[in-house]
Protein backbone atom coordinates (compact mmCIF):
# COMPACT_ATOMS: atom_id res chain seq x y z
CA UNK A 1 0.00 0.00 0.00
CA UNK A 2 1.40 3.39 -0.91
CA UNK A 3 1.51 6.41 1.29
CA UNK A 4 -1.20 7.99 -0.78
CA UNK A 5 -3.45 4.97 -0.30
CA UNK A 6 -2.75 5.06 3.42
CA UNK A 7 -3.74 8.69 3.61
CA UNK A 8 -6.90 7.87 1.67
CA UNK A 9 -7.75 5.24 4.27
CA UNK A 10 -7.33 7.84 6.97
CA UNK A 11 -9.74 10.17 5.29
CA UNK A 12 -12.30 7.51 4.47
CA UNK A 13 -12.29 5.27 7.51
CA UNK A 14 -11.05 7.26 10.49
CA UNK A 15 -14.56 8.45 11.31
CA UNK A 16 -16.08 4.99 10.88
CA UNK A 17 -13.52 3.31 13.07
CA UNK A 18 -13.85 5.99 15.69
CA UNK A 19 -17.64 5.73 15.67
CA UNK A 20 -17.43 1.96 15.98
CA UNK A 21 -15.10 2.17 18.97
CA UNK A 22 -16.83 5.08 20.62
CA UNK A 23 -20.29 3.46 20.42
CA UNK A 24 -18.81 0.45 22.13
CA UNK A 25 -16.88 1.97 24.96
CA UNK A 26 -18.49 5.41 25.24
CA UNK A 27 -15.14 7.02 26.15
CA UNK A 28 -14.12 9.62 23.61
CA UNK A 29 -10.51 10.01 24.66
CA UNK A 30 -9.86 6.31 24.86
CA UNK A 31 -11.60 5.83 21.55
CA UNK A 32 -9.22 8.38 20.01
CA UNK A 33 -6.25 6.55 21.44
CA UNK A 34 -7.48 3.26 20.06
CA UNK A 35 -8.03 4.78 16.63
CA UNK A 36 -4.55 6.33 16.64
CA UNK A 37 -2.98 3.08 17.76
CA UNK A 38 -4.84 1.30 15.01
CA UNK A 39 -3.54 3.59 12.32
CA UNK A 40 -0.04 3.42 13.75
CA UNK A 41 -0.15 -0.33 13.47
CA UNK A 42 -1.35 0.02 9.94
CA UNK A 43 1.44 2.44 9.08
CA UNK A 44 4.05 0.09 10.44
CA UNK A 45 2.77 -2.62 8.15
CA UNK A 46 1.93 -0.32 5.29
CA UNK A 47 4.05 -2.31 2.87
CA UNK A 48 2.31 -5.56 3.74
CA UNK A 49 -1.30 -4.43 3.56
CA UNK A 50 -3.29 -4.44 0.34
CA UNK A 51 -5.34 -1.32 -0.19
CA UNK A 52 -8.53 -3.30 -0.89
CA UNK A 53 -8.34 -5.00 2.50
CA UNK A 54 -7.32 -1.93 4.43
CA UNK A 55 -10.79 -1.32 5.83
CA UNK A 56 -11.20 -4.80 7.22
CA UNK A 57 -7.66 -4.61 8.63
CA UNK A 58 -8.53 -1.36 10.37
CA UNK A 59 -11.70 -2.73 11.94
CA UNK A 60 -10.00 -5.95 12.95
CA UNK A 61 -7.14 -4.14 14.62
CA UNK A 62 -9.48 -1.64 16.24
CA UNK A 63 -11.81 -4.38 17.49
CA UNK A 64 -8.98 -6.37 19.04
CA UNK A 65 -7.55 -3.31 20.72
CA UNK A 66 -10.97 -2.39 21.99
CA UNK A 67 -11.62 -5.85 23.38
CA UNK A 68 -8.32 -5.74 25.21
CA UNK A 69 -9.31 -2.46 26.74
CA UNK A 70 -12.79 -3.66 27.64
CA UNK A 71 -11.46 -6.76 29.32
CA UNK A 72 -9.68 -4.53 31.73
CA UNK A 73 -13.17 -3.72 33.04
CA UNK A 74 -12.56 -0.06 32.69
CA UNK A 75 -15.41 0.69 30.39
CA UNK A 76 -18.11 -1.79 31.23
CA UNK A 77 -19.14 0.00 34.34
CA UNK A 78 -18.79 3.31 32.58
CA UNK A 79 -21.06 2.18 29.78
CA UNK A 80 -23.74 0.75 31.99
CA UNK A 81 -23.50 3.51 34.50
CA UNK A 82 -24.01 5.99 31.74
CA UNK A 83 -27.45 4.70 30.99
CA UNK A 84 -28.27 3.56 34.47
CA UNK A 85 -27.68 7.08 35.65
CA UNK A 86 -29.86 8.28 32.84
CA UNK A 87 -32.65 6.01 33.90
CA UNK A 88 -32.51 7.16 37.46
CA UNK A 89 -32.92 10.75 36.40
CA UNK A 90 -35.30 10.27 33.57
CA UNK A 91 -38.50 8.38 34.04
CA UNK A 92 -39.55 8.70 30.49
CA UNK A 93 -37.88 8.79 27.13
CA UNK A 94 -38.70 11.63 24.89
CA UNK A 95 -36.72 10.31 22.00
CA UNK A 96 -36.90 6.95 20.32
CA UNK A 97 -33.22 7.29 19.67
CA UNK A 98 -32.57 7.33 23.35
CA UNK A 99 -34.59 4.17 23.77
CA UNK A 100 -32.71 2.49 20.99
CA UNK A 101 -29.37 3.58 22.43
CA UNK A 102 -30.40 2.24 25.78
CA UNK A 103 -31.52 -1.03 24.24
CA UNK A 104 -28.18 -1.18 22.46
CA UNK A 105 -26.34 -0.57 25.70
CA UNK A 106 -27.89 -3.67 27.19
CA UNK A 107 -26.10 -5.88 24.70
CA UNK A 108 -22.72 -7.37 25.47
CA UNK A 109 -19.62 -6.14 23.66
CA UNK A 110 -19.67 -8.92 21.12
CA UNK A 111 -23.30 -8.34 20.20
CA UNK A 112 -22.73 -4.60 19.98
CA UNK A 113 -19.74 -5.08 17.74
CA UNK A 114 -21.39 -7.50 15.32
CA UNK A 115 -24.56 -5.39 15.08
CA UNK A 116 -22.55 -2.24 14.36
CA UNK A 117 -20.37 -3.96 11.81
CA UNK A 118 -23.54 -5.26 10.17
CA UNK A 119 -25.56 -2.06 10.28
CA UNK A 120 -22.87 0.64 10.08
CA UNK A 121 -20.44 -0.95 7.68
CA UNK A 122 -22.64 -3.48 5.88
CA UNK A 123 -20.26 -6.38 6.42
CA UNK A 124 -21.41 -9.90 5.67
CA UNK A 125 -21.52 -12.61 8.35
CA UNK A 126 -18.29 -14.02 6.99
CA UNK A 127 -16.52 -10.67 7.03
CA UNK A 128 -17.74 -9.94 10.51
CA UNK A 129 -16.53 -13.34 11.55
CA UNK A 130 -13.04 -12.58 10.27
CA UNK A 131 -12.96 -9.30 12.11
CA UNK A 132 -14.24 -10.63 15.39
CA UNK A 133 -12.72 -14.06 15.27
CA UNK A 134 -16.09 -15.84 15.11
CA UNK A 135 -17.45 -18.22 12.55
CA UNK A 136 -20.33 -17.32 10.31
CA UNK A 137 -22.96 -19.23 12.32
CA UNK A 138 -21.87 -17.63 15.54
CA UNK A 139 -22.11 -14.19 14.00
CA UNK A 140 -25.61 -14.92 12.77
CA UNK A 141 -26.73 -16.14 16.18
CA UNK A 142 -25.22 -13.08 17.90
CA UNK A 143 -27.03 -10.75 15.51
CA UNK A 144 -30.33 -12.54 15.80
CA UNK A 145 -30.20 -12.60 19.55
CA UNK A 146 -29.16 -8.95 19.65
CA UNK A 147 -32.05 -7.87 17.50
CA UNK A 148 -34.49 -9.92 19.46
CA UNK A 149 -33.25 -8.46 22.71
CA UNK A 150 -33.44 -4.95 21.42
CA UNK A 151 -36.88 -5.52 19.95
CA UNK A 152 -38.26 -6.76 23.24
CA UNK A 153 -36.68 -3.84 25.10
CA UNK A 154 -37.98 -1.29 22.67
CA UNK A 155 -41.41 -2.91 22.59
CA UNK A 156 -41.71 -2.88 26.33
CA UNK A 157 -40.77 0.79 26.63
CA UNK A 158 -43.01 1.81 23.80
CA UNK A 159 -45.93 0.12 25.39
CA UNK A 160 -45.20 1.90 28.62
CA UNK A 161 -44.94 5.24 26.90
Amino acid at each position, binding site marked *: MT*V*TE*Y*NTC*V*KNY*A*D*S*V*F*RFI*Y*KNIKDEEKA*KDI*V*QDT*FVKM*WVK*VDDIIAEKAKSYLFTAAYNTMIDAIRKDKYKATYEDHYDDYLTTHNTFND*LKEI*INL*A*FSKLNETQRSV*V*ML*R*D*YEGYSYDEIGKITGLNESQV*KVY*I*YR*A*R*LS*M*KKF*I*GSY*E*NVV
Partner: protein
Amino acid sequence: MEININNYEVYVIDFFDGMLNEIDSANLLIFLDQNPVLKEEFEILINSSKLIPLEHNSFDSSLLLKPTNINVNNYDEKLIALIENDLSQSEKDVLLSEINSYPDLEKAYELFLKTKLIPDSKILFKNKESLIKTPFRILPLYIQISAIAALFIAVIIVFYFANNFNSKNQLANNEAIVKAKQDSISKILKSKNNIPIQLQRYNEKEMLAFGGVNAALVKKNGKKPMVSPAIPLNKNNKNLFKENPLNNNNNQSVTPIPMPKKIISDNGLINNNITQTELPKLDEKQALKENNADIYLPNNNEIAFQNIESVNIENKDRSLTSYLKNQLQITAQSEVIAVNKPTNSAENITLAESIGLNVLSIYNMVSNHDLKVKKTYNNDGEIEKVRIVATGW
Protein backbone atom coordinates in the same frame (compact mmCIF):
# COMPACT_ATOMS: atom_id res chain seq x y z
CA MET B 1 -53.26 -49.22 9.82
CA GLU B 2 -55.75 -49.77 12.54
CA ILE B 3 -55.27 -47.74 15.70
CA ASN B 4 -54.88 -49.87 18.82
CA ILE B 5 -53.54 -49.60 22.34
CA ASN B 6 -49.98 -50.24 21.14
CA ASN B 7 -49.73 -47.56 18.47
CA TYR B 8 -52.22 -44.89 19.51
CA GLU B 9 -49.49 -42.69 21.06
CA VAL B 10 -47.87 -42.25 17.66
CA TYR B 11 -51.13 -41.07 16.22
CA VAL B 12 -51.57 -38.64 19.11
CA ILE B 13 -48.14 -37.11 18.50
CA ASP B 14 -48.79 -36.78 14.80
CA PHE B 15 -52.06 -35.16 15.64
CA PHE B 16 -50.36 -32.49 17.75
CA ASP B 17 -47.70 -31.96 15.03
CA GLY B 18 -50.38 -31.42 12.48
CA MET B 19 -49.17 -34.31 10.44
CA LEU B 20 -52.29 -36.45 10.73
CA ASN B 21 -54.74 -36.43 7.80
CA GLU B 22 -58.48 -36.18 8.28
CA ILE B 23 -59.16 -39.90 8.07
CA ASP B 24 -56.53 -40.81 10.64
CA SER B 25 -57.68 -37.95 12.85
CA ALA B 26 -61.22 -39.27 12.74
CA ASN B 27 -60.04 -42.82 13.49
CA LEU B 28 -58.03 -41.52 16.44
CA LEU B 29 -61.07 -39.73 17.86
CA ILE B 30 -63.17 -42.91 17.44
CA PHE B 31 -60.50 -44.98 19.26
CA LEU B 32 -60.39 -42.47 22.08
CA ASP B 33 -64.18 -42.60 22.42
CA GLN B 34 -63.92 -46.39 22.79
CA ASN B 35 -61.23 -45.94 25.51
CA PRO B 36 -62.43 -43.34 28.07
CA VAL B 37 -59.27 -43.50 30.14
CA LEU B 38 -57.10 -42.76 27.13
CA LYS B 39 -59.49 -40.05 26.02
CA GLU B 40 -59.15 -38.35 29.39
CA GLU B 41 -55.37 -38.34 29.06
CA PHE B 42 -55.63 -37.01 25.52
CA GLU B 43 -57.79 -34.10 26.67
CA ILE B 44 -55.37 -33.27 29.46
CA LEU B 45 -52.58 -33.28 26.95
CA ILE B 46 -54.39 -30.95 24.62
CA ASN B 47 -55.08 -28.42 27.35
CA SER B 48 -51.51 -28.32 28.63
CA SER B 49 -49.77 -27.88 25.25
CA LYS B 50 -51.93 -25.09 24.01
CA LEU B 51 -49.70 -22.07 23.02
CA ILE B 52 -50.29 -18.89 24.97
CA PRO B 53 -49.99 -15.73 22.90
CA LEU B 54 -47.44 -13.03 23.82
CA GLU B 55 -48.50 -10.63 26.45
CA HIS B 56 -48.88 -7.68 24.18
CA ASN B 57 -49.30 -9.47 21.00
CA SER B 58 -52.31 -11.29 19.89
CA PHE B 59 -52.19 -13.26 16.79
CA ASP B 60 -54.90 -14.68 14.77
CA SER B 61 -55.67 -18.11 16.14
CA SER B 62 -55.39 -19.48 12.70
CA LEU B 63 -51.70 -19.12 12.98
CA LEU B 64 -51.56 -21.48 15.93
CA LEU B 65 -51.82 -24.62 13.98
CA LYS B 66 -51.09 -23.31 10.55
CA PRO B 67 -48.35 -25.36 9.00
CA THR B 68 -46.88 -22.41 7.10
CA ASN B 69 -43.37 -20.89 7.03
CA ILE B 70 -44.26 -18.48 9.77
CA ASN B 71 -45.99 -19.12 12.97
CA VAL B 72 -45.97 -17.94 16.48
CA ASN B 73 -42.92 -20.00 17.23
CA ASN B 74 -40.77 -18.75 14.45
CA TYR B 75 -42.09 -15.35 13.48
CA ASP B 76 -39.24 -13.54 15.28
CA GLU B 77 -36.67 -15.51 13.39
CA LYS B 78 -38.45 -14.97 10.11
CA LEU B 79 -38.77 -11.27 10.66
CA ILE B 80 -35.11 -10.94 11.61
CA ALA B 81 -34.16 -12.92 8.52
CA LEU B 82 -36.28 -10.54 6.49
CA ILE B 83 -34.43 -7.59 8.00
CA GLU B 84 -31.06 -9.26 7.50
CA ASN B 85 -31.97 -10.10 3.92
CA ASP B 86 -31.40 -13.77 4.55
CA LEU B 87 -34.61 -14.96 2.80
CA SER B 88 -35.09 -15.83 -0.79
CA GLN B 89 -37.29 -13.65 -2.89
CA SER B 90 -40.24 -16.05 -2.73
CA GLU B 91 -39.95 -16.32 1.04
CA LYS B 92 -39.84 -12.57 1.26
CA ASP B 93 -42.97 -12.21 -0.78
CA VAL B 94 -44.88 -14.70 1.32
CA LEU B 95 -43.72 -13.16 4.56
CA LEU B 96 -44.51 -9.66 3.46
CA SER B 97 -48.00 -10.71 2.46
CA GLU B 98 -48.56 -12.27 5.86
CA ILE B 99 -47.20 -9.20 7.56
CA ASN B 100 -49.74 -7.18 5.73
CA SER B 101 -52.43 -9.62 6.76
CA TYR B 102 -51.69 -9.68 10.44
CA PRO B 103 -51.42 -6.37 12.33
CA ASP B 104 -49.61 -7.92 15.23
CA LEU B 105 -47.08 -9.37 12.88
CA GLU B 106 -46.71 -6.02 11.24
CA LYS B 107 -46.12 -4.37 14.59
CA ALA B 108 -43.46 -6.88 15.44
CA TYR B 109 -41.84 -6.28 12.12
CA GLU B 110 -41.74 -2.55 12.78
CA LEU B 111 -40.07 -3.11 16.11
CA PHE B 112 -37.43 -5.22 14.48
CA LEU B 113 -36.86 -2.50 11.92
CA LYS B 114 -36.04 -0.12 14.74
CA THR B 115 -33.26 -2.40 15.92
CA LYS B 116 -31.37 -1.68 12.71
CA LEU B 117 -28.86 0.96 13.66
CA ILE B 118 -28.23 4.12 11.70
CA PRO B 119 -24.73 5.69 11.87
CA ASP B 120 -24.60 8.94 13.76
CA SER B 121 -22.95 11.34 11.36
CA LYS B 122 -22.17 13.69 14.21
CA ILE B 123 -19.66 11.30 15.69
CA LEU B 124 -16.43 12.13 13.89
CA PHE B 125 -12.75 11.63 14.56
CA LYS B 126 -11.20 15.01 15.07
CA ASN B 127 -7.67 15.90 14.06
CA LYS B 128 -7.33 13.44 11.20
CA GLU B 129 -4.31 15.45 10.12
CA SER B 130 -2.31 13.88 12.90
CA LEU B 131 -2.74 10.53 11.20
CA ILE B 132 -1.70 11.73 7.76
CA LYS B 133 1.77 10.67 6.71
CA THR B 134 4.14 12.50 4.41
CA PRO B 135 4.88 10.80 1.14
CA PHE B 136 8.17 9.17 1.99
CA ARG B 137 8.93 5.61 2.64
CA ILE B 138 10.53 4.17 5.70
CA LEU B 139 14.06 3.34 4.75
CA PRO B 140 15.41 -0.04 5.63
CA LEU B 141 17.57 -0.16 8.70
CA TYR B 142 20.78 -0.90 6.83
CA ILE B 143 20.28 2.19 4.65
CA GLN B 144 19.67 4.33 7.72
CA ILE B 145 22.86 3.04 9.34
CA SER B 146 24.84 3.60 6.15
CA ALA B 147 23.55 7.16 5.86
CA ILE B 148 24.51 7.93 9.44
CA ALA B 149 27.98 6.45 8.97
CA ALA B 150 28.53 8.45 5.77
CA LEU B 151 27.45 11.62 7.49
CA PHE B 152 29.82 10.96 10.38
CA ILE B 153 32.75 10.39 8.02
CA ALA B 154 31.92 13.57 6.11
CA VAL B 155 31.92 15.56 9.33
CA ILE B 156 35.34 14.19 10.29
CA ILE B 157 36.78 15.05 6.88
CA VAL B 158 35.41 18.57 6.97
CA PHE B 159 36.73 19.08 10.47
CA TYR B 160 40.18 17.79 9.48
CA PHE B 161 40.53 20.08 6.51
CA ALA B 162 39.13 23.02 8.40
CA ASN B 163 41.69 22.48 11.15
CA ASN B 164 44.56 22.39 8.66
CA PHE B 165 43.30 25.46 6.93
CA ASN B 166 43.13 27.30 10.23
CA SER B 167 46.65 26.19 11.14
CA LYS B 168 48.04 27.54 7.90
CA ASN B 169 46.16 30.73 8.33
CA GLN B 170 47.44 31.01 11.88
CA LEU B 171 51.03 30.47 10.72
CA ALA B 172 50.66 33.12 8.10
CA ASN B 173 49.18 35.45 10.66
CA ASN B 174 52.03 34.77 13.05
CA GLU B 175 54.59 35.56 10.38
CA ALA B 176 52.82 38.75 9.57
CA ILE B 177 52.74 39.69 13.24
CA VAL B 178 56.44 38.97 13.63
CA LYS B 179 57.29 41.03 10.59
CA ALA B 180 55.16 43.86 11.84
CA LYS B 181 56.91 43.78 15.18
CA GLN B 182 60.27 43.75 13.54
CA ASP B 183 59.30 46.72 11.51
CA SER B 184 58.17 48.53 14.60
CA ILE B 185 61.37 47.67 16.41
CA SER B 186 63.37 48.93 13.48
CA LYS B 187 61.58 52.19 13.64
CA ILE B 188 62.20 52.47 17.33
CA LEU B 189 65.87 51.82 16.89
CA LYS B 190 66.38 54.43 14.24
CA SER B 191 69.30 56.63 14.91
CA LYS B 192 69.22 60.31 15.40
CA ASN B 193 70.41 60.61 11.92
CA ASN B 194 67.48 58.50 10.94
CA ILE B 195 69.72 55.69 9.93
CA PRO B 196 67.72 52.54 10.07
CA ILE B 197 69.04 49.55 11.82
CA GLN B 198 68.58 46.32 10.12
CA LEU B 199 67.90 43.64 12.58
CA GLN B 200 69.28 40.34 11.86
CA ARG B 201 67.54 37.16 12.57
CA TYR B 202 69.44 34.70 14.61
CA ASN B 203 68.74 31.17 15.48
CA GLU B 204 68.71 29.99 19.02
CA LYS B 205 72.43 29.79 19.42
CA GLU B 206 72.89 33.10 17.83
CA MET B 207 70.31 34.63 20.07
CA LEU B 208 72.07 33.09 22.98
CA ALA B 209 75.27 34.66 21.84
CA PHE B 210 73.63 37.91 20.94
CA GLY B 211 71.80 38.42 24.11
CA GLY B 212 74.42 37.05 26.19
CA VAL B 213 77.81 36.86 26.62
CA ASN B 214 76.44 36.40 30.05
CA ALA B 215 74.45 33.46 28.96
CA ALA B 216 77.51 31.98 27.40
CA LEU B 217 79.42 32.58 30.54
CA VAL B 218 76.73 30.92 32.47
CA LYS B 219 76.91 27.97 30.23
CA LYS B 220 80.60 27.74 30.23
CA ASN B 221 81.45 28.61 33.76
CA GLY B 222 78.17 28.19 35.45
CA LYS B 223 78.69 31.59 36.95
CA LYS B 224 76.23 34.32 36.71
CA PRO B 225 77.87 37.47 35.50
CA MET B 226 77.55 40.55 37.55
CA VAL B 227 76.47 42.74 34.79
CA SER B 228 74.21 42.11 31.95
CA PRO B 229 75.30 43.57 28.75
CA ALA B 230 73.25 45.85 26.67
CA ILE B 231 73.41 45.74 22.99
CA PRO B 232 76.43 47.78 22.29
CA LEU B 233 75.98 50.61 19.90
CA ASN B 234 78.56 53.07 18.92
CA LYS B 235 78.02 56.68 18.26
CA ASN B 236 77.01 55.94 14.78
CA ASN B 237 74.44 53.51 16.14
CA LYS B 238 76.18 50.72 14.49
CA ASN B 239 75.28 47.37 15.74
CA LEU B 240 78.50 45.98 16.89
CA PHE B 241 77.41 42.58 15.95
CA LYS B 242 77.81 42.80 12.28
CA GLU B 243 77.94 39.23 11.46
CA ASN B 244 77.21 35.99 13.06
CA PRO B 245 79.40 36.26 16.11
CA LEU B 246 79.60 32.60 16.49
CA ASN B 247 82.83 31.17 15.53
CA ASN B 248 82.61 27.87 17.17
CA ASN B 249 82.98 25.15 14.66
CA ASN B 250 83.06 22.48 17.25
CA ASN B 251 79.65 23.51 18.48
CA GLN B 252 80.60 22.55 21.95
CA SER B 253 80.16 25.47 24.24
CA VAL B 254 78.61 28.64 23.17
CA THR B 255 81.34 31.12 23.56
CA PRO B 256 80.28 34.45 22.32
CA ILE B 257 82.84 36.19 20.34
CA PRO B 258 81.99 39.76 19.88
CA MET B 259 82.97 41.35 16.74
CA PRO B 260 86.33 42.85 16.88
CA LYS B 261 86.22 46.48 17.55
CA LYS B 262 88.12 49.23 16.17
CA ILE B 263 89.54 51.39 18.80
CA ILE B 264 91.16 54.54 17.89
CA SER B 265 93.38 56.50 20.05
CA ASP B 266 94.66 59.86 19.34
CA ASN B 267 97.80 59.04 21.20
CA GLY B 268 98.95 55.60 21.45
CA LEU B 269 101.72 56.50 23.68
CA ILE B 270 101.02 57.54 27.13
CA ASN B 271 103.60 59.88 28.10
CA ASN B 272 103.41 61.98 31.10
CA ASN B 273 105.58 64.38 29.51
CA ILE B 274 103.20 65.16 26.87
CA THR B 275 100.65 67.65 27.77
CA GLN B 276 97.44 68.39 26.17
CA THR B 277 98.48 71.67 24.86
CA GLU B 278 101.23 70.07 22.99
CA LEU B 279 99.27 67.42 21.39
CA PRO B 280 96.78 68.21 18.75
CA LYS B 281 93.23 67.55 19.86
CA LEU B 282 91.54 65.00 17.77
CA ASP B 283 87.90 65.33 17.02
CA GLU B 284 86.42 62.27 18.52
CA LYS B 285 83.48 61.97 16.25
CA GLN B 286 85.46 62.57 13.19
CA ALA B 287 88.08 60.14 14.25
CA LEU B 288 85.47 57.44 14.84
CA LYS B 289 83.80 58.14 11.59
CA GLU B 290 86.87 58.31 9.51
CA ASN B 291 88.27 55.15 10.91
CA ASN B 292 84.96 53.39 11.17
CA ALA B 293 85.86 52.75 14.72
CA ASP B 294 83.80 51.82 17.64
CA ILE B 295 85.62 53.17 20.60
CA TYR B 296 87.60 56.28 20.96
CA LEU B 297 90.43 56.37 23.32
CA PRO B 298 91.59 59.81 24.13
CA ASN B 299 94.99 60.71 25.33
CA ASN B 300 95.99 60.64 28.88
CA ASN B 301 94.31 63.82 29.71
CA GLU B 302 91.46 61.91 31.17
CA ILE B 303 92.85 61.44 34.52
CA ALA B 304 89.83 61.76 36.57
CA PHE B 305 87.96 58.53 36.66
CA GLN B 306 84.41 58.25 37.40
CA ASN B 307 82.14 55.31 37.55
CA ILE B 308 84.93 52.95 37.47
CA GLU B 309 83.32 49.74 37.91
CA SER B 310 84.44 46.44 38.82
CA VAL B 311 87.99 47.48 39.38
CA ASN B 312 88.79 45.46 42.27
CA ILE B 313 92.16 44.13 42.79
CA GLU B 314 90.97 41.35 44.92
CA ASN B 315 88.34 40.24 42.49
CA LYS B 316 90.26 41.22 39.51
CA ASP B 317 89.70 38.08 37.63
CA ARG B 318 86.06 38.51 37.52
CA SER B 319 85.68 42.16 37.58
CA LEU B 320 88.02 43.76 35.17
CA THR B 321 88.10 41.05 32.67
CA SER B 322 84.40 40.79 32.71
CA TYR B 323 84.07 44.49 32.44
CA LEU B 324 86.37 44.81 29.58
CA LYS B 325 84.95 41.91 27.76
CA ASN B 326 81.32 42.47 28.49
CA GLN B 327 80.98 46.17 28.67
CA LEU B 328 83.58 47.22 26.24
CA GLN B 329 83.46 44.14 24.19
CA ILE B 330 87.19 44.36 23.93
CA THR B 331 88.90 41.19 23.13
CA ALA B 332 92.13 40.09 21.74
CA GLN B 333 90.58 40.37 18.35
CA SER B 334 89.70 43.93 18.76
CA GLU B 335 91.45 46.16 16.40
CA VAL B 336 93.02 49.18 17.78
CA ILE B 337 93.93 52.00 15.60
CA ALA B 338 96.38 54.38 16.91
CA VAL B 339 96.48 57.75 15.50
CA ASN B 340 98.89 60.38 16.23
CA LYS B 341 101.40 57.97 17.33
CA PRO B 342 104.04 59.57 19.24
CA THR B 343 107.06 59.73 17.29
CA ASN B 344 109.41 59.79 20.17
CA SER B 345 110.23 56.77 22.16
CA ALA B 346 109.80 53.69 20.23
CA GLU B 347 110.25 51.79 23.39
CA ASN B 348 106.92 52.97 24.68
CA ILE B 349 104.30 50.43 24.43
CA THR B 350 101.32 51.77 22.74
CA LEU B 351 98.08 51.47 24.53
CA ALA B 352 96.40 50.35 21.46
CA GLU B 353 98.83 47.61 20.90
CA SER B 354 98.62 46.59 24.48
CA ILE B 355 94.91 46.50 24.33
CA GLY B 356 94.93 44.73 21.13
CA LEU B 357 97.18 42.06 22.29
CA ASN B 358 95.46 40.54 25.14
CA VAL B 359 93.25 41.31 27.99
CA LEU B 360 95.75 40.21 30.53
CA SER B 361 97.94 43.07 29.65
CA ILE B 362 95.07 45.36 30.07
CA TYR B 363 94.35 43.82 33.36
CA ASN B 364 97.82 44.25 34.52
CA MET B 365 97.77 47.80 33.54
CA VAL B 366 94.55 48.39 35.33
CA SER B 367 95.65 46.59 38.41
CA ASN B 368 98.72 48.60 38.44
CA HIS B 369 96.68 51.67 37.93
CA ASP B 370 98.20 52.07 34.61
CA LEU B 371 94.94 51.68 32.81
CA LYS B 372 91.77 53.18 33.90
CA VAL B 373 88.38 52.99 32.46
CA LYS B 374 85.76 55.54 32.31
CA LYS B 375 82.23 55.08 31.17
CA THR B 376 79.70 57.65 30.36
CA TYR B 377 76.03 56.79 30.40
CA ASN B 378 73.30 58.42 28.50
CA ASN B 379 69.87 59.23 29.77
CA ASP B 380 68.62 55.75 28.95
CA GLY B 381 71.23 54.21 31.12
CA GLU B 382 73.19 52.91 28.21
CA ILE B 383 76.89 53.30 27.82
CA GLU B 384 77.52 56.32 25.71
CA LYS B 385 81.22 56.64 25.96
CA VAL B 386 83.96 54.53 27.14
CA ARG B 387 87.39 55.71 27.73
CA ILE B 388 90.33 53.76 28.70
CA VAL B 389 93.16 55.82 29.85
CA ALA B 390 96.54 54.61 30.56
CA THR B 391 98.68 56.50 32.98
CA GLY B 392 101.99 56.20 34.59
CA TRP B 393 103.66 54.55 31.76
